[in-house]
């Protein structure tokens, strides 16, 4: 005959077993910890192959970027300030570099694919009067590519913004070499001189 104390202990032990099982399941089912070294450590990299949708509505594979360095920036077309400022700045830096529009490609990936259809994106980028590759996709595709590039983005409610929301997003530009390897970043608030120096190195 089990006393009250023994019964309670039995329950406690079973509860511990259950918790242990859950913990084990989580540990086993979780994808293996990222092999990615921390930023600044040797071997740290960003990017990786992807397929998104171009402004012509056709699939765009990252392999199409091979052979030329590129600068990639994540934003959205309903962003009236930071995004055109960054794209305009990249276009101006490319001009200052004096190696033509072919020196490096400018790639703009939307973090707001719900509104940025290929057409919306294409019309928007055409305004800049310089070649810019615009990429969109499904929410999941875009989120994955952003994540692989270390880009944070989040929808934020703003009743005074078009559509009632705006997007917070990492403001840095990522630079990739002609071999597709991550080279470095240009921060959102970086000065013109260091930014130009980085692009000179990128295209040398």
């Amino acid at each position, binding site marked *: 005959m089990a006393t009250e104390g023994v019964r309670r202990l039995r329950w406690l032990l079973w509860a511990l077993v259950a918790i242990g099982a859950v913990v084990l399941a989580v540990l086993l089912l979780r994808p293996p910890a990222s092999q990615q070294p921390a930023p600044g450590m040797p071997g740290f990299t960003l990017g990786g192959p992807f397929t998104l949708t171009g402004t012509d509505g056709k699939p765009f594979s990252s392999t199409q970027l091979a052979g030329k360095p590129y600068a990639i920036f994540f934003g959205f077309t309903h962003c009236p300030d930071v995004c055109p*400022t960054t794209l*305009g700045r990249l276009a101006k830096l490319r001009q200052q570099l004096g190696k033509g529009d072919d020196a490096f490609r400018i790639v703009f990936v939307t973090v707001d694919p719900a509104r940025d259809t290929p057409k919306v994106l294409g019309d928007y980028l055409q305004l800049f009067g310089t070649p810019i590759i615009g990429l969109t996709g499904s929410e999941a595709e875009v989120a994955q590519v952003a994540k692989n590039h270390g880009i944070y983005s989040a929808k934020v409610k703003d009743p005074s913004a078009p559509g009632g929301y705006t997007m917070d997003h990492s403001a840095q530009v990522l630079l990739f070499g002609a071999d597709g390897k991550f080279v470095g970043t240009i921060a959102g608030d970086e000065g013109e001189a260091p930014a130009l120096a980085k692009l000179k190195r990128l295209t040398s």
Partner: protein
Amino acid sequence: MLATMRLTLPIAAAASIIAASPAPAADVMVSGWARAGIGNAAAYVTVHNHGRSADRLLSVSTPAAAMASVHDSLLVRGVATMRPAGPLVIAPGQSLAMAPGGKHIMLMGLKGPLRPGTRLPLTLRFAGAGTVTVTVPVLPPGAIGPAEAHRGH
């Protein structure tokens, strides 16, 4: 609730300072430029208050867009965020300067594409100076400012 009250108090205080200021309307001088866009765009103005009392920018409108409001871009640990700007009080002798990457007038629901080379009428309503209408040039979407060439860093 507490946070809301804490936020409203300084606004109310600022508003009461303006309300209490003497009748002569503060003089303001407005200049600026806009950036080309399709569905939405941004305009940047500089408002100089050469009056004797503080003034406050209450609202902005333009016949070219369904809605215009002042927003503020911030860079917080590498993340670009944008929020409606708080009260825009301009002290006497001071300027409110909007610029890319900071305060800007967000133009929403453009009635037609805003093309570079055209001009945009903007009407600014002030608590003291009343309504001021200016017409600003529309620059390319990547423009940083009208005086770009003179800017030395």
